[in-house]
């Protein structure tokens, strides 16, 4: 299986001196294509920090982060942005859609940045929105969609751009249990059918239950790595 994410002895320290926080401590993980992984651990254990690292949003103090065969320590700010656009899909906790754009326009946004033709964008977006049960909602603005529907649009936006993997930080935090189940079903199916790689940072037991691999973090260290 192709490795899509690899960290080698990654350390991240916030602040310095007395108040320094060692958020990641020699973290080395490998994630391959097609995995469905949950990062879990108590609050403050470093889940978000690690997710940001493998999302190319932050740089480690030491160690290497290799994403889709690219050591991102070499990339400049603008190159990093472009790398994320081409390789990484994001689903954040909430409110990550642009409020003035419709579901359709939000979903096609990254493809537009990638320079994909309008014909192809249309095909992919309509197909995906239908798959996630949002047929007929294409022209709704985020404000006219429920939280669960918004998160599904965010998944479509990430997926439509054909990233190497999708990262989601607490994607279900603001959802009720029906919406959580729907979203999990969707991601699970995409993982099974399209072999899309997912990595979640989560507290949510329902998410953890569905994960195929669970990486436990505590105090910035990987304490357990469980394949199911």
């Amino acid at each position, binding site marked *: 299986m192709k490795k899509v994410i690899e960290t080698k002895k990654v350390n991240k320290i916030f602040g310095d001196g007395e108040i320094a926080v060692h958020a990641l401590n020699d973290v080395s993980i490998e994630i391959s294509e097609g995995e469905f992984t949950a990062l879990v651990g108590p609050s403050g254990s470093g889940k978000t920090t690690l997710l940001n690292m493998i999302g190319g949003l932050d740089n480690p103090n030491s160690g290497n982060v290799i994403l889709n065969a690219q050591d991102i320590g070499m990339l400049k700010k603008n190159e990093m942005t472009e790398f994320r656009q081409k390789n990484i899909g994001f689903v954040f906790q909430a409110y990550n859609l642009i409020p003035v754009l419709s579901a359709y326009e939000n979903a096609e946004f990254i493809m537009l940045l990638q320079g994909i033709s309008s014909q192809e964008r249309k095909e992919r977006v309509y197909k995906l929105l239908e798959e996630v049960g949002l047929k007929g909602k294409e022209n709704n603005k985020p404000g006219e969609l429920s939280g669960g529907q918004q998160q599904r649009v965010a998944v479509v936006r990430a997926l439509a*751009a054909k990233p190497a993997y999708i990262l989601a930080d607490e994607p279900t935090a603001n959802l009720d249990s029906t919406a959580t189940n729907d979203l999990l079903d969707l991601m699970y199916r995409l993982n099974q059918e399209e072999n899309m790689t997912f990595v979640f940072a989560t507290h949510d037991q329902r998410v953890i239950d569905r994960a195929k691999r669970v990486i436990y973090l505590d105090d910035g260290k990987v304490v357990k790595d469980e394949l199911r």
Partner: protein
Amino acid sequence: MKKLFLILAWRNIWRNKKRAFITISSIAASLFFVLFLRQMQFWVYDFNIKNSVAATVGYIQITDSSYVDEKIIDNTLSSNQVDVEALTKIEGVKGVYPRFLSGALVSTGIKSKYAGISGISPETDNKLLKLDIKLRKGTLINADDRAIMITENMADYYQVSVGDSLILMGQGYHGFTAAGIYPIKAILNFPVGELSSMVFMPIKEAQFMHVADNRFTHVLIDIESNNQLEEIYSEVKKVSNDSQISVRTWEEVVPGLKQGIDMDANSGLIISGILYMIVGFGIFGTIVMLHNERKFEFGVLNAIGTNRFDLLFITLTELTILTLIGIVIGNLSSLPLLYYFNQNPIKIGGDAAQAVIDQGFEPYMGTGLFLDVFTANSLAILAIATFVSLYIVIKIIRINALKSMKK
């Protein structure tokens, strides 16, 4: 690809309708006010320059160099020193008018008083001096007449009317005596200023009386617009390239008027500046609010792969459209009023009139439709908006997706 950016920019404007409305109307209202003020000022200057300069001292005047310091008949120009034809051909020149100005003792035999003598070319000067409007009695003189026109003030003083004669006595060329007795052909209405005690006669007769055939004191050059003053001045200098000849613009001949205009224009500039500062702060406030409101969104957009320059493009497009809408509304809404007062200038009455006269201006108020006033002030607002936009430019250039997404 940029089409969705434009859509995004456009919709972002209307995201906070109240704010968009306040920003647009503050730009439009201040531009409206500044345009009215400046168009009025420039109309007044233009009007005063046209009225007090064109006919009397000329936009540009040519004299003998020595005449500048000593205004005597010995220091006049001879007609072969000035190439009137070449001057007339200069682009923007409306007319070239030789004049013979001097002074003489004017007398009925019983009452005498010093007055100015203005030798004019009736065929052109009657129009330039708007004599048909000023005429109160009699008929205007012709080029070959041996007659004079005087003002109502003088007619009252000497107790004379059309048909009576006045004796003129003064200093002629090279020590000759300048003297003559002339019938009054017309009485004119020049109530104030230098022209109120002026005797007008055909230039030929003035030259004859002063024993100065083919000589004149001034050549006045009338031009299309004061905007071209500098250009035409340098052209005139080229044609009259002779150290014996002095070429001066009205600004040098009547520095008082020039100073009055400059001072008044500066006061207008200060008022405009204050208004622009207020507008600038207004736009700045809008930008700061907008940034706070969108910070999270900018973070998300950058995280998912929108680079800083695309974010800048979207945001600056939004701000530019917002500013341009304000500018367009400001310009358009000012037009009807500016046009109305351009076509219907009003005469100021009462104490206000005296204040205006004291400043050296005629008591008329109208508004101009000068293109450069519209463009300069529109560009000024655009420049201010651009300047205050630097705030958000810097914020976006320095964007850090994670920090922006922190609540």
